[in-house]
């Protein structure tokens, strides 16, 4: 008992000392002549793949820009474990570091929490990939690099109707994921408007994302010829495999979360043959900038970049363009930068890896056209 108390006191003393050290360490703002950009994302845990990709993509862009001369950036990413509480902690740590511009959070739920903080603190934020509308709702200084969820839902329904991809549609979505549910909601709405027939709607959760036989059987029994999969590619890969095992071969239609499926290590790409997805980024593109980016990414991180990495990369370049347009200086405070960047973002046009001539509306949503891709022989082929 007594010993425990001694240990407790010792730990508390260490904590106090560490906090005091933290206090004194954060008083150097804008000395280095670089803009301090901070971001949070899941670097550990289930969603770590998205956070690390966005971070790596952004880092490549920062290194490129710093090597060019002119504007300089300093980038710092903090782990938020895909959790709102941890994300706010990470955001506050970045504030202590002297962050001037916020790269938002990579995933939606944390981003809703951090964007509210950034709104109150007047720090400009541009999130690479948090696509929920709650992220931007009512916040004038919050911008997105990715499509908002409703846009993906409507665009998908529109696409399916326009191209006549399917008559009887089944949807499988993830019922504890705002991203998946958000896309499903608008998809269902738009589908009703376009007279697309949804014959089967089934769900899964984090706790039950192994076995999809029930969902697939339901779709099969109701004669669905197209399955819409608003989800990330990990569960989707299981769906493809299990559908094949039961001898069911519908068409699949995915959204941007499906991007990355071809980079899955040891994945049998023939399972994804014919899968259609809407994605803003194509790692196989012949575009010079994309090739350059993909090569650099492979060299540094030994894998093919996914859409999150490209979004992170684009964010940094978009910020560079906006900072130059608004003639900002690293010595400005975060709130001064915030007002200038809001002005710049709502007026500028930006060409990036994930879209050409992107523009931003005042509500923070990006307008770029999703590219319809179909997977053929293990590679993306443009549909249009």
């Amino acid at each position, binding site marked *: 008992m007594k010993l425990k108390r001694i240990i407790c006191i010792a730990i508390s003393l260490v904590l106090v000392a560490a906090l005091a050290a933290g206090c004194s360490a954060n008083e150097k703002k804008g000395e280095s002549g670089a803009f301090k950009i901070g971001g949070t994302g899941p670097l*550990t845990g289930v969603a770590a793949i998205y956070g690390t990709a966005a971070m790596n993509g952004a880092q490549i862009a920062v290194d490129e820009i710093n090597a060019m001369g002119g504007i300089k950036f300093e980038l710092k990413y903090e*782990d938020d474990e895909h959790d*709102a509480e941890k994300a706010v902690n990470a955001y506050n740590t970045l504030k*202590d570091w002297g962050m001037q511009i916020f790269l938002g959070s990579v995933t939606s739920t944390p981003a809703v929490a951090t*964007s509210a903080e950034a709104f109150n603190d007047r720090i400009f934020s541009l999130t690479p990939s948090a696509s929920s509308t709650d992220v931007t709702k009512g916040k004038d200084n919050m911008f997105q690099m990715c499509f908002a969820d409703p846009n993906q839902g409507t665009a998908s329904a529109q696409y399916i109707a326009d191209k006549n991809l399917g008559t009887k549609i089944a949807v499988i979505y993830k019922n*504890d994921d705002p991203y998946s549910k958000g896309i499903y909601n608008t998809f*269902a709405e738009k589908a009703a408007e376009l007279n697309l027939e949804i014959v089967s709607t089934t769900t899964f959760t984090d706790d039950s994302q192994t076995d999809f036989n029930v969902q697939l059987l339901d779709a099969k029994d109701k004669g669905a010829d197209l399955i819409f999969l608003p989800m990330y590619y990990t569960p989707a890969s299981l769906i493809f495999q299990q559908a094949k095992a039961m001898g069911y071969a519908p068409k699949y239609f995915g959204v941007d979360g499906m991007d990355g499926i071809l980079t899955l290590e040891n994945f049998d790409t023939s399972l994804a043959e014919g899968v259609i997805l809407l994605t803003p980024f194509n790692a196989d593109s012949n575009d010079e900038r994309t090739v350059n980016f993909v090569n650099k990414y492979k060299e540094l991180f030994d894998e093919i970049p996914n859409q999150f990495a490209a979004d992170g990369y684009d964010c940094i370049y978009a910020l560079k363009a906006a900072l130059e347009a608004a003639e900002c200086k690293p010595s400005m405070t975060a709130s001064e930068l915030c007002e200038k960047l809001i002005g710049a973002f709502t007026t500028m046009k930006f060409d990036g890896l994930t879209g050409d001539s992107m523009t931003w509306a005042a509500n923070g949503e990006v307008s770029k056209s999703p590219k319809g891709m179909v997977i053929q022989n293990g590679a993306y082929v443009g549909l249009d």
Partner: protein
Amino acid sequence: MKKNNIFLIYGTVIAAYIIIQLLMSAGAVTSSLRGQLVPICAYIVMAVSLNLTVGVLGELSLGHAGFMSIGAFTGVVACMSLESALPPTLPRFVISLLVGAAFAGVAGFLIGIPVLRLNGDYLAIVTLAFGEIIKNIINCLYVGIDSRGLHLSFLTNSDALNLEEGGTVIINGPMGIAGITKLSTFTFGFALVLVALFIVLNLIRSRAGRAIMALRDNRIAAESIGINVTKYKLMAFVTSSALAGAAGTLFALNYSTITAAKFNFNTSILVLVFVVLGGLGNIWGSIIATTVLVILPELLREFNDYRMLVYAIVLILVMLATNNATFKNTLRELVNKIIPEKLIKRKEGTTDGNS
């Protein structure tokens, strides 16, 4: 527990509050720490309340986050529905807290009746099961408000609420609640910690508390002297869940968004770690362990990728250090070398008796 020990707890908590307030007004507290003050308070209330179930009642619960979840969602719904009717924040906050606590308490009562008939790990797994069920149900729940009042819908989507023009969706299924106005402040959190301490410490020191501890130590003996098992078990369990509900409301009103997924098995386990590390039945220990373990991962940010690995190692080492005799002796020898013998002896004289 001695009386002066109780005052020590209150005194230290109040002193800690005053010191932090002073430091804050002097601008000497980092944003990182300032942002963690409210969650620390919420987790302290969680740990203290779970300690009532695990330490004092002696039943392992693996679903405490479920009650936190109920408190969080009902509290926020109350808070958002009262927004126009009751603009001042303090009464609205208090009412939300009470609503959260009441709903969680009722859930605790309903769940407690079947659960407390079981023993040991079977009880633990059933609490885990209830935690998962609560999470699943909230994921399928839609609540909205308009001028006609609250609307509820289950297993559908927010359109099924049939809200009037200008109505707002509060709980939106898996998206949870977004756009919460932050009402929680450190002072509110601190007040809740004091209230929780007051309730739990008084319960432990009361006649009922002694009955509960008697049940823990030997149920059959306690029953044979006429202690009503169900009544006292439920008393501890319901108090514990109501406090967890209040903690949930405090926690939720500190963030602009909450989702049901947050209050999962891992959160239950996290709070259990606080309790066990602080010492079963030791309220003071719960407070310290919670504070240290909530701040620790933030302090470990220097380690970048290795952060959670270091956290895991620290957790294992602390468990070994506090519970293993050989480890303890080595440590004691080390302490003896650093601190002169005399000092320790004198200390022993004063703190003897409550260890």
